[in-house]
């Protein structure tokens, strides 16, 4: 089997690795890239836990090959805080602050994927209704919260983002 050279920008940092073609992006992020914040749940695109941003758009990292991100920019939960291209590792993004405030996570397994989906969603829909929020997170499974506080968290995140830094 051939090996593929992948050079990508992950959370603002250039990374270059040789991978087997069959390596999923989710496994690449957690393994060679050393970013274990991206969680792997179902591995067939149903649970949403592994969602990351590819060139700013949400994708399921378990439904992409690592070989496909060559030349692309990927944002994982580790790179969410800070401005685009210059992540502030350790700081909390307004969406993370909002989730903290509203108790929008319990075990936290689904949270990284939800945060990235919500980041893309709020970019496009800065003042969402609760119905729009429910729709936006419908591609994510959470077995702890019952979703109620996640919806509150997203609404609060929209307020915090509107207030500015």
């Amino acid at each position, binding site marked *: 089997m*051939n090996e593929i050279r992948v050079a990508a920008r992950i959370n603002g940092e250039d990374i270059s690795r040789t991978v087997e073609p*069959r390596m999923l992006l989710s496994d690449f992020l957690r393994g060679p890239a050393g970013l274990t914040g991206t969680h792997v749940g179902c591995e067939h695109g149903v649970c949403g836990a592994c969602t990351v941003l590819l060139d700013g758009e*949400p*994708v399921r990292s*378990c*439904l992409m090959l690592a070989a496909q991100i060559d030349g692309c920019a990927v944002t994982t939960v580790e790179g969410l805080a800070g401005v685009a291209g210059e992540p502030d590792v350790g700081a909390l993004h307004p969406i993370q602050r909002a989730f903290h405030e509203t108790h929008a996570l319990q075990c936290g397994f689904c949270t990284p994927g939800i945060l990235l989906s919500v980041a893309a969603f709020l970019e496009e829909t800065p003042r969402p209704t609760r119905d729009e929020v429910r729709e936006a997170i419908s*591609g994510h499974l959470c077995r702890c919260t019952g979703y109620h506080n996640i919806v509150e968290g997203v609404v609060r995140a929209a307020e915090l983002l509107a207030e500015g830094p």
Partner: protein
Amino acid sequence: MKPPPFDYVAPTDLDEALAALADAGEDARVLAGGQSLIPMLNFRLAAPVKLIDLNRVSELSGIERRPDGGLVLGAMTRHRQLERDATIAEYAPLLAEAAPWIAHAPIRTRGTIGGSIAHADPAAELPALLLLLGASVRVARAARDGEAPGRVERTLPLDDFCFGPFFTALEADEVITRIDIPPCGPLEGTAFEEFARRRGDYAIAGAASRMILDEDGTCLHAAVSLINAGPAPALVAGVEEPLVGRPPTEDRLAEAADVASAGCDPAPDMHGSEAYRRHLVRVLVLRTLARAARRAAAGRTPGIETEDG
């Protein structure tokens, strides 16, 4: 839950991709958006020796309006583009209306129109919608032994393309390159609706309707295409009977919905019995036909309408 080993190429040129596919033989697969193929790899339901990734072939993307008003959609057009593109909203509003109902946003970011048709899932929206719009599929392959070198292309109406569940007219060395959609007239209306237990899940059933009226409000054309209510997308036979040649009154729309409900072929499963699905089809067809009729009467289907749902 990890894909089996395979070789991988990501050409930037279509002819290069076609040659790679022809060389690799029947055990190779084409990778478009990957939102169906990669789960199949993860489950090891598919084990190709080689994947030919089309994501870097720029010739396969783009949405264009032809001089006659029809649209040409590159096979690698993403569902997200159908959802957001201004040309689609104006000239193929049915696709813009339905696109947000295709799976979830992260799937729509990657999933492609060509991939959806090639996969031919009876629960997929796009094959049924494109059939209703009278679309045709352009496919290409590299010349075979004994043929003059170069690219060999053919065009098939969508009707002759999807035969059954996951079964199409596409041959092992062929790739879908584009979808052609004929122009829509000024007194034409379309509408889409589906029902799923959770937003983004596969629909238990869905319906798309199209109606063309004349200036006096007489129905010239009525058609209905169903999602997940039969083995392959097909226009429902007989729905035009009560409608064509007359104004689309409530009674006649209801009669057409009864025809669709009786004529569909839904497979019962844990989410609904056959009777339930027939009832659902009736309701969805009635709603979409009524909305298509209103939109046709209003002159032109607006991109996304909200006032009456």
